[in-house]
């Protein structure tokens, strides 16, 4: 088991009177895929947004590479090497793959772009991820399929020497072949030594790629286990009831308060 790269301890978050996250502990390890599962409203997206710096946390501490850090905004998270691939892909249809991958962080001197450098870097990144379904890096994003777009969005996140990549439902809108493509990519990210967090509703996807599964139940971390130690039905019970046998929260009915 590798060292944790990102560790959250006792995170609490409220929106007004609604207590969304209760003392959540969450660990992301380098070289592993951690699946974050939970029913709608369990707090998955809130947790991701807290990590990404979009929402400030009320209490709790964040450790990155063993050091305590404070994330006050998306820029802090990006500086640490935390990248988020959102569900609605943040890509511009009218730009090509290279332009999208470098959007907002273009390379060049004095405002003049260095296209050659960017194109080579984009190609290296895609090649290192063994992306092979894109014909040319100069293809406009408008001409790509859903899976290819997701690939570009993920490759964009990897380009920045990132250490942790959070993927919010990357396969939700994809067909079978394209889901395959994206899951392979998720696996390869972990093989390259990144800490990967995969949010998904699809148990098949989770069991296929995840090394560990973290299950949120009504804002509490019900269980965080290696994938090989749990069965499909146990995870479903954890998601829906917060408890399965001796796993999960002791008194899930109390959690609803």
């Amino acid at each position: 088991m590798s060292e944790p790269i990102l560790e959250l301890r006792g995170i609490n978050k409220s929106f007004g009177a609604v207590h969304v996250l209760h003392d959540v502990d969450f660990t992301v390890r380098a070289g592993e895929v951690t699946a974050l599962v939970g029913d709608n409203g369990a707090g998955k997206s809130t947790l991701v947004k807290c990590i990404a710096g979009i929402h400030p946390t009320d209490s709790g501490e964040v450790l990155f590479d063993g050091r305590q850090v404070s994330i006050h905004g998306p820029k802090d998270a990006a500086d640490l090497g935390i990248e988020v691939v959102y569900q609605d892909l943040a890509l511009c249809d009218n730009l090509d793959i290279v332009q999208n991958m470098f959007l907002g962080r273009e390379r060049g001197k004095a405002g003049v772009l260095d296209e050659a450098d960017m194109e080579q870097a984009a190609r290296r990144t895609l090649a290192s991820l063994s992306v092979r379904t894109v014909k040319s890096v100069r293809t406009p994003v408008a001409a790509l399929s859903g899976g290819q777009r997701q690939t570009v969005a993920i490759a964009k996140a990897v380009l920045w020497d990132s250490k942790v990549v959070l993927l919010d439902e990357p396969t939700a809108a994809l067909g079978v072949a394209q889901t395959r493509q994206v899951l392979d990519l998720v696996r390869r990210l972990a093989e390259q030594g990144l800490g990967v967090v995969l949010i998904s509703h699809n148990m098949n996807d989770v069991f296929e790629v995840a090394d560990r599964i973290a299950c949120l139940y009504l804002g509490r971390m019900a269980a965080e286990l290696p994938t090989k130690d749990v069965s499909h039905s146990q995870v479903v019970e954890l998601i829906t009831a917060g408890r399965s046998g001796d796993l999960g929260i002791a008194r899930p009915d109390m959690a609803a308060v």
Partner: protein
Amino acid sequence: MSDTSAGTATTGDKNDERGPAPTGGEAGATAKNTAKGPDRSTDKATPSAAIADFGIDTTSQTTGEALRAYVARVRGGEFGSLPALLGLVVLLVVFSALSDSFLTLGNIANLLAQGTGTTIIAMGLVFVLLLGEIDLSAGTASGVTASVMALHLVRNGNLLSGMGTTVFYLFAAALVVAVVLALLLRVWIGAGLSAVALVIVLAGVPANPWVEMLLALCVGAAIGCITGFLVAKVGIPSFVVTLALFLAWGGVVLQFIGEGGTLGLRNDVLFAVANGNLSTAASWALFVVAAGGYAAVVLTRHFSRLRKGLVAQPTTLVAVRVGAVVVLGAAATYLLTLNRSVSNVVTISGVPYVVPIVLVLLVIGTFVLDRTRYGRHIYAVGGNKEAARRAGINVTQIRMSVFVICSSVAALGAIVYSSKVGSVDPNAGGGNTLLFAVGAAVIGGTSLFGGKGRIRDAVIGGAVLAIIQNGLGLLKQPAAVVSIVTGLVLLLAASVDALSRRRAAAAPR
């Protein structure tokens, strides 16, 4: 089209799908495979053509492939400037056949000067249109800059007496507001130019043709700061803001010039802008600089891309394009250096000044949009505002800045059209000026929906409109026919835009 479907089709081929992870993670992956059971047993290393399959082989194409890819793009709805160029050819042929005087040297030179004012305003509008916004006030705003310029010239720099005390102080206050607003959103160029305008106005710098042109440009920038702030920061739709300002600036022009009045631009330099010509030697020098510069830039870039193994067009195509520009440029320069005077008393020859003016603006505009970070951000905001925001682009700043550019460039257009007629009247920039400029940009292929368009679209579209007006005028058609035909051409262009978007959306993903 075909390439994308082929791309997705290969994804079904699972064994072939996985390449090796070049970072040496493969061993770890196999170890995990055994731990994780049958789910991932399909993970086979196929080191054969993993990387070679990606991209690399498409960096260079043969001429045939490139042409086929182009045809496929056009069929898929990416028309670009193609319809406008075809229209241009058709119009040239039709008018040359119908009118003897259309294809004379004198008329062609006249046509260039006639269309330039609108074309320049359209070039500025392209920036605004790229964001999917519109600036309806660019026409009357250009009228304001023209009237300030003329007033400053006529009153020899004393705007206080020219405008009257109240109006003068309101005008100065508006310039101060523009500076403040630009500083607030950190649009430095807008703040700087507005400040220059303020200094010229308050210091009463004596009349000088170059100062007048600078003043017009700076007043244009100040107007853009106000428009841009209202749209970008306050958040009023650009259509409403600029519609209101269209009316307001029209009134300001009337106030500055006075009802029924006309301000003459009696100055040789200002008159020469739209009516003067380069000498024969200078004309050829312009050709050498322009065509030679184009060839040098295009060829250097092409061979540097080839050397670095980047995506590049076939050398043949690039050579043909460069050759065509050089030959056409040489032919045009030669023809324009012939004497085109109809009387024997005077000789008129040389390339009109408006040609280098438009070329310089074209080069600067293209450079900004294609080669700078700022231009890339304009396309990004026009394509997907939310994505641009998440990528850390200051969307508000970009939105304000395009209005500053649009109004400043419109001021340059105002200089040219005022110079053409030699005076500024209360109707300057009013009427159809703006609508023709928007029409020129759209006819050239700029999308009204944002994210798609180039500066050269404005030039091509401007040429189409100028030819229609000039040609129908030569055929002694009444103004009614000219307006109707122009309207129909614009409608046609807008339909092409909408149609191309539909085809692009319907294209298989």
